[in-house]
Every structure is written in C-alpha cells, then in structure tokens.
C-alpha cells in the first residue's frame, strides 16, 4: 500500500503518534513493545519519513541511553545474575530486560515522532489551530519540532569548541567528564533562550495575534482516509491495551 505522503492530514499523523507513544509508555511487556516498534517503523516508512537521517542526527543520544540502562540495571539486583564481580551482582536478567524495554520505548517515541516531520510546519500549525489549540501554542510546537535537529548540531559544535580549549575529553576521568557536560550545555541553552527571545520580538513587531480571527488560505479538510486511520489507530490502541491488561 502506498499513501501519497502529503495527502494525510497533520491531525491524522498527530493521532497516530499520540496512540503509538501512549502505548509505548503504558505497556511494560517487552514482546509487545518490539511489535509496536516494528509497526511504527512500517507506518513511518509508508508515510515517507526519513528514519535513517533522524537516527543519524540523534546518534549522540544513544550513548546517554546506554549509560541510563547501565545505571538502571546496576540498581536492580533481583532476578537471575548474569554478570558478577567479586560477589557483587552487576547485571541481572531483570535489569537487562528493564534496560531493553527502556531502549525500545525511546525508539518507538522517536520513530513515531518522525511521522510528524513529513508535514510542513505550516500544515502542523494549521492542523493544531483547527483542533482549537491557540495559535501561539501551535506555533511554538511547530517551531520546537523544527528546532530539534538544529539543537543536536549545536551540541556537537559545542563539544568540539570546548575541546579546542585544550581539553582531551577522552582522557578525563568519568567524574570530570560529567562536569564537562554541564559546561557544554551552557552555550546551547543560552543560545536557545536568546533565539526564543529574538523570535518573540520578531513576532511582536509583526503584530502577531493582532487579529482575533486569522483567515487561512488553505483550510485543512479531513478526507475519508484520514477518518479511517484516526478511528483505526484508536481502535488498534484500545485493542492492544485490552489484550495487555486482561
């Protein structure tokens, strides 16, 4: 089945993402999580999202995920021991499964979010407004979605810039490496705040929100396929939950 990627309404895509990501948060069963991940990859592909380029952009996050899993599994010491050093349980099967569940959950959320990126920010804003969400908030959401890739680039730049201060990040102790990360986020966060300020000033000077009723040139309309997918994804989510909770 091939759906033309720009045909689906952004609201339909939002519903899809909402259903998929809520499922991933509620469900604690690793097998079902894997199933949902596969389904969201398929949907995302059909809709023409570029999962690969998104994954490339968030490569850095993977390391943080792995660190979280290791730390998490260190604190879970019930279940069968898998790795043991000097009588200390380092990794148990329960810890491992919890860690994997966490990875799959994050993967589902990220993959399903790529579905949204197949709409333009204009369409997303328009879709949210027609859902009776205030224009300001709708605008911010779409700016946020577009902003993420820039943010990961800025974090990378910042890591490079701090090394040019004569620091060998790879040779630092773990404690100091963690300390370094608090510095790395400084220009990124401060830069974002400054950008947000500029954006809001720009909006004010352009009389953003000067008229209560905005007229839209391209009002969105839900097609039959949209209704089908929206209802389908709700039904699907409820079905999975019912099976899972019974």
């Amino acid at each position, binding site marked *: 089945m091939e759906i033309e990627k720009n045909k689906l309404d952004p609201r339909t895509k939002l519903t899809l993402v909402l259903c998929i990501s809520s499922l991933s948060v509620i469900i604690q069963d690793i097998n079902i999580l894997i199933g949902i991940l596969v389904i969201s990859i398929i949907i995302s592909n059909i809709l023409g999202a570029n999962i690969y380029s998104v994954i490339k952009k968030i490569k850095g996050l993977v390391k943080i995920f792995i660190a979280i899993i290791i730390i998490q599994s260190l604190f879970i010491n019930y279940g069968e021991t898998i790795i043991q050093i000097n009588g200390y349980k380092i990794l148990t099967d329960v810890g491992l499964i919890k860690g994997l569940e966490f990875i799959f959950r994050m993967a589902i959320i990220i993959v399903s979010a790529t579905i949204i990126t197949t709409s333009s920010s204009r369409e997303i804003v328009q879709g949210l407004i027609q859902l009776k969400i205030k224009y300001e908030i709708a605008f911010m959401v779409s700016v946020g979605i577009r902003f993420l890739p820039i943010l990961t680039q800025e974090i990378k730049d*910042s890591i490079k810039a701090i090394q*040019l*201060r*004569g620091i060998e990040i790879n040779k630092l102790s773990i404690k100091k490496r963690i300390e370094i990360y608090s*510095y790395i986020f*400084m220009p990124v966060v401060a830069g974002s705040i400054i950008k947000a300020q500029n954006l809001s000033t720009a909006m004010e000077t352009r009389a953003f929100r000067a008229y209560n009723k905005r007229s839209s040139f391209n009002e969105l309309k839900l097609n039959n396929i949209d209704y089908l997918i929206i209802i389908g994804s709700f039904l699907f989510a409820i079905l999975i939950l019912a099976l899972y909770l019974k």
Partner: protein
Amino acid sequence: MAFIKASNVSFNYKEGENVLNNLSLELNKDKFTSIIGPNGSGKTTLGKLLIGLLKPVKGKILINDRDILTMTLGEIGQLIGYLFQNPEKQLFSTSVEEEITFIMKLKGMDKKIIETEKEKILDKFSLKHLRKEFPFNLSQGEKQRLALASIFVNKPRFLILDEPTTGLDIKRKEILSSHIDILRKEKIGMAVISHDKSFITKHSDRIIEINRGEIVGDRKKQIRSKN
C-alpha cells in the same frame, strides 16, 4: 618555516558542490595575515579546516609539520587559538572569572597558579571590572575579549580570528586593535578573516583574497604600500 600549511585542500558540505577548491596556503608565525573575500566565498570554512573543526575531502593540512588528522582537537587548541564568528559559541561558564579558570581546574592545576594566571589574564584583556558578570549578558566586544582571554589560558602560538570586528563600534574596534598589537609584540602569529578595510589596512603584513573557494590574490605589505 610555515606554522600552518594547507596543500591542495578541497572541501564540500554536499557532494559535488565544492566550497574550497584545491587550495594551498602557508601561514607564518611572524606575520599578520588577513583573509578577505565576499560573503559565502569560503573564509569561515577555511578557518574551520585549519583548526581541525572540519576535515578536508581532499588534500592535507599540517600544523607545525604534523598532519592535522593525527592530532586531537585538544592538542590543536594548545597550539592555535580560534575565535568563532559568534563568540557566544565558545563561552561555557556562569561568570567571567570561571570562564578563565574552569579549564585549568579541570586539568588539575595548582590553586595558587590558577589564581595568579587568572588575575594576569583578566588584567591583560581589561576584564577585571566584569569578573562576576554572566558572560551572556556582556556586550559583543566584551564577549569577544572574554573568548580571547579564555583562549589565552593555553598560551597558543597562533590565532585565527573570524570576523572579529563585526558588531563593534569604532571605540571597541580600537580596544580590540590595541589588544591585537600587544599580542603581536608577544610574537603570536595571526590570521584574521575580515571585511573591515580600515582594520585590515592597519594591521596586515599580508592580505589573501578568496573567491569561490580559490585564492585569487596574495599581497605582501611592500606591494600594498605602493598602491
């Protein structure tokens, strides 16, 4: 001997669209070299290549006769200081003082040495009265001085400055100029990317002109003074 040497360097951000084209260049430590050229001609890209922030697609870059690809950014930073076009990108701390000291602390240097170094550097870059300020609240000129000051913790032997006079009024430009003069007296080599005619004329021993990723002019001081 050239301190930085680029041989036949090409670079692109997207395949097939070369930003730099087979460019060769030698920068000496005893010269103030200006790199000029229209917007988008590849000046910033060249600067980033020379400091190892970008890797050439073709060609080779040597710093002090060592292939830049064998060096870590940390090692390069000890030899060459780089001032970003936007200095906010290289400010990491919550106070001016800490901006100067945190690298020394991370390196585990002695507290007393850090204190004296800090005072020296604050003084040298006229930042003493701003020591408790939040770096992001400083003016453009002050941010730049702070970025330069923090680079100087490493005592680099060469500086690459990307458009250091943008956003500075005449008075701040003079302040920057006087700091550059002091650094030149300390035999620190400089390559400055700039549009600023009066600033370039004032300092340069050599002017390299870039257009569409190629060097289209390379003038030494003697030639320039005849014009």
